[in-house]
Structures are given as C-alpha cells and as structure tokens.
C-alpha cells in the first residue's frame, strides 16, 4: 500500500510537471508546425520573471504569476518577430525552425547565466507543505500544478473549439491557403499562437520551479526533453493526448524508479517512444495533416 502511494504521488508530481511542459510544445507544433527547441528556456524565463518581480521589485508573491505572463508574452512576441515571421513561408520550415530555436535556446540560456548566474535559486512563488496520507506526503504544489495543467488544457481546448479565434487557429493549422482565402490573416494568427505558447510556457515555468526543480537557466531542459518523448508518443499537435500521455508515462517512470532505479526512467521513455513510433510514425494520436512539404 505504501509502495503504491509512493508511486502514485511521485507519478502525479512528475506527470503534472510533464503535462505543463508538453502543452505549449504541442500547441506550437499543431498550429505552426514548429518543434520548439527553446521550450526549456521559455520555461526558465517564466521562472525568472516571477523571481525578479518578487525579489527585485519587491512585489507581493502572488504577483509573480502575472509577471511571468508578461515575460512569456514578450518572449512570444520576440520569437515571432525575430524568427517565425521570416521563416514560415520558406521551404523546409520544419527543419529550419528547429535549428533556429536551438540557436535561440543557447543565446537565451547564456544571457540568463549572465544576468542571474548559473546557481540555483528558490522560486518565491510557491506553496510549501502537503497532505500526509498513509505516511507519504503529497505536496500542495503538486495539486496546484495538476490543477494549472488541467485548467490550461481545458481553457485552451475551449478556446480552440468554441471561439472565432480558435476556429481561425485550427483552420490555419489544417489548410493555411484555404484559411487565407477566407480572410484569415495568417501572420497574425501565428503571432497570437506564438504569444499564447510563450505565456503557457512561462506559467508552466513558475509552477515547475516552485515544485521539484530549483530555478536555474537549465531548469526547463529536462522537462522539455521528457516532453519531447511524451509528444512523440502521444503524437505532436494533440493537446489532450499530450496531457494524458504525460500522466501515464509519469506513472511508468515512477514505477521504474521505485522498482529498478532512477537511472532508467529516461531510457524507458526512449524505448517506449521508439516502439510507438515504429508502429505509428506520427505518434498514437498525431495529426498527419499538419505536415507541410
């Protein structure tokens, strides 16, 4: 029973973290066709925005979240105007944007090291403590993270399904030409999605750094890499599938950590990803239609 709870709680904690990292990633892929290798630093930017607002500006701690949202907004804006805007019409966008975002990740990471040093800091926006059930602690922050991941997924789902903007986003993702012919300003849609992804990543970053990881320029790297596997398995572009896969994989990882060794969490995920992709090259629920040549 204790073992079960242990696995359950660590699975929930990890799963919430992965889900937070995967949502923004899969949104960008689904709409813009962009695998964002800067997702990790975008998470860290959110963490630092919150940290700076509370520590340097002396704002009360709940204002860390709006500060992160502003940081994410700016990041999305900059990404669009510096990179995406010039690239999305050109051939081989899918590969070019991966290279460009690897470059951006390194630039931003170096800048963060310059400003904040590489030493881990404490995220002041956090809720310490937790419930004790059967002698095992379930941290409050895990519950917050799960709720935030859930709210973001539902909110995003509602936006995409039921609003005029959301329909335009889906239309652009599915048939860019046809959407344009109906008067959809594709450039603006891409900008809006880029900003949404920036904000989602920033919020996720605050939650992540408040929970398991400390705040450092590399804080987002591991969650991003795990999110890669999750998205590969779930299929890029499908948000609910990404969240579901996050939880399932986190439980698998949790069980392996408990029964074998923490070392083999990553390799197990890779193995699963390879098996799934050999079986289904676009993931379990991937959208093949997004692929552009």
């Amino acid at each position, binding site marked *: 029973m204790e073992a079960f709870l242990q696995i359950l709680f660590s699975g929930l904690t990890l799963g919430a973290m992965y889900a937070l990292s995967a949502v923004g990633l899969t949104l960008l892929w689904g709409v813009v066709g962009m695998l964002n290798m800067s997702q990790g630093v975008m998470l860290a930017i959110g963490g630092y925005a919150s940290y700076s607002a509370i520590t340097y500006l002396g704002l009360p701690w709940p204002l860390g979240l709006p500060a992160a949202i502003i940081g994410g907004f700016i990041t999305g804006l900059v990404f669009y105007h510096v990179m995406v805007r010039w690239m999305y019409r050109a051939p081989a966008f899918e590969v*070019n944007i991966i290279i460009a975002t690897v470059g951006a990740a390194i630039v931003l990471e170096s800048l963060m090291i310059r400003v904040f040093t590489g030493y881990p800091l404490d995220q002041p926006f956090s809720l310490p403590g937790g419930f004790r059930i059967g002698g095992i602690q379930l941290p409050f922050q895990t519950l917050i993270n799960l709720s935030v991941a859930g709210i973001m997924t539902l909110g995003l789902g509602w936006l995409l399904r039921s609003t005029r903007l959301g329909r335009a986003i889906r239309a652009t993702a599915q048939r860019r030409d046809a959407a344009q012919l109906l008067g959809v300003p594709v450039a603006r849609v891409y900008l809006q999605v880029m900003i949404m992804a920036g904000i989602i990543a920033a919020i996720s970053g605050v939650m992540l750094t408040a929970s398991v990881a400390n705040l450092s320029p590399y804080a987002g790297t591991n969650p991003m890499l795990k999110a890669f596997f999750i998205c590969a398995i779930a299929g890029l572009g499908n948000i609910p599938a990404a969240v579901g896969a996050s939880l399932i994989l986190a439980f698998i990882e949790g069980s392996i950590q408990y029964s074998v060794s923490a070392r083999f969490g990553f390799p197990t995920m890779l193995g699963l*990803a390879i098996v799934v992709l050999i079986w289904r090259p676009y993931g379990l629920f991937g959208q093949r239609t997004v692929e552009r040549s």
Partner: protein
Amino acid sequence: MNGAGFIRMTPIRRDIAIGLFFLAIAIAIPFIDSSRSTMTQVILLFIWASIVTQWNLVFGVAGIFSLAQMAVFTMGGYTAAMLSLYMGWSLWLTSFLGAFMAVLVSGIIGAATIRLRGAYVALLTIGFAVVMQVLILTDSDCFFYRGVTCYNFTGGSSGLSQFGDFGFRDWLGYKQSLVGKYYLALFLLVLGTIFALVIMRGPFGYAFRALRDNANCASSQGINRVKYQILVFALSGFFTGLSGAFYAGHYKTIGPTMLDLSVLLLLLSMMVVGGLGRAWGPLLGCIILMFIDDQLKVYAEWRTVGTGAITILFIIVFRQGVAGLIEQLWERLLALRGARTAGASATNDKATG
C-alpha cells in the same frame, strides 16, 4: 590556369583543385608555425571538420535531420577508450573497433528512424543522445578499483582517462609528438572528405538527393529508401566514430560533456554557416566558426551568444551558407564573362559583316 578555365571545370575536377589547395595549406602549417597553441587549435578544427563532414552527408545530402551525430562520435570514442582500458589493447586497434561500433549504432539509429519524418527524427535522435548522456552521468556502480578508489564502467561524470594514447611521444619525442598527431588528424579528415565527396558526386549521391527532394518519386524509380537510409547512417558513422576515437587518444580523456547541447549547436552552426549539403560547406563553416570563436575569446561570456545568433542569422537570411554564396558569386562571374564574350563576338560579327 586562368579563372575562366577554373570556372568551367567539371565538379569533380573542381573538387580536386579545391581539395589540393586546402591540403597544401594544411600540410604547410606545421612548417610555418608548430607552436603548441596553433597545433592544438588546428587539430581541434580537423576533428570538428571530420564530424561535420559526415553529419553533412546524413543531414545536408540525404536530408535526414538526425541530432544523434555527437552520440555516434561519443560511442566511437568510448568504445576505443574502454577496450584499451579494460583489455589493454593498443588504441590503434581499438580505434577501428570503436569506428565499427559507431557504424553499428549509427545503422541502428538509421533503422529506427526509417518511417519518421522531419521533426520526429529530430525528437528521437536527440532523445538517443540525451539517454546516452544520462546513463553515463548516473553511472555510479563500482566496476573496478585502482587502489582504494572506485571507478565506474563508463567513468561517470568525470569521464574516462588513462587508457593510453597513440604513442607519438615514444616515436617522435615530446616536441614533435603534437605534429605527428596533427598529421594523423589531417589524414583522417582527408579520408573522410574523399569518402564524402565520392558519396555526394557518385550514384549514391544521386539516390540520396532524389530521396531528399521527393521520396515518393524516388521510390517509384526503384530507389530503396530503407537500404539507402541505413547505408548513409552506417557509412557516415564509420568516420564519425573514428574521429571520436582519435579525439579520445588525442586528449587522453573522453567524457559525457561531448553530448552537451552546446557542442551540438557549435557543430550545427558550422554546418549551417558553411552551407547545408554543400561539398565544401563543412570545412568552410568550421574555419569561419573557429575564427570567430577565437576573435570572441576576449569576451568569453559572449561566445555562445555569438554562435547562436550567427546560426539564426544564417538559417533565416543565408540558408545556402558561405559555400552557397561563393557558388552564386561564381555563377554570376561566369554569366558576366559569358555575356562579355558573347558581346565581343557580336561586335566582331558586325565588324566582319
């Protein structure tokens, strides 16, 4: 030979001319300046260029966006180092075994990504590199003891060392040993480059380009994607693995830092700046990036920022890379000359007519 003659040469002859030009400079360097700093810098350049040349085959020519290049390199290096360390074999022998191990691993990666496209290839291959790094970094079981100190199988986060070297110091003496390693590195680079050129200019290259540009059309012409993809991965793996083994023997150590994202980015920017898929792109890119890096040494903390920014700039504005720019310049020159001679003959006609 005049300029116009050079311009009109067949690609193969032009490659030979360019290759001999670079080779002559490379051979001459130790005679001009055999200082320790120059030698180490240029040896490193040769190593990077060897890796990027092979990566360029997979990525630029075959169009498979693999990010596992450094994993293949590290596999070659570790295999050589571990076999020398645990079996006591000469590094000359284990280097080849390392290269074959790299062929095997690279072929497996090639096979695993066969049905995948673009971003999914990137996802899976970077995952492979990450897993390899994690497994090395978290390796904490004692494999053997030297005195009372415990050593891991893979050397863990500090990497492997004390597995011997290529023995240049015994043959050439301390002072000349670096020059010996210099020429060995050069030899490896020349071999790798010849191999890459043969692939690119030969029938293989045609098949790869056909697969890259239109996989469906190529397969309807009987080009077997499975066969070629595994082949390109495996073949490029050989020289990549060999470079890894040389790296280990040269620095007498190899560690998991070679799998860092920053190393991958450095090599990626070399390839992008030089020109994706261009025969001489990797070499040019390595020279340019090493030069810029050297210039930025004073502003050490801005080096990575510079590398990242240059990569973004090139991928957006000059996707053809420096090699592509030179090629364009060349063609324009050719067109200009052509126009001038045509114009001259026209006036001649008028004069005679």
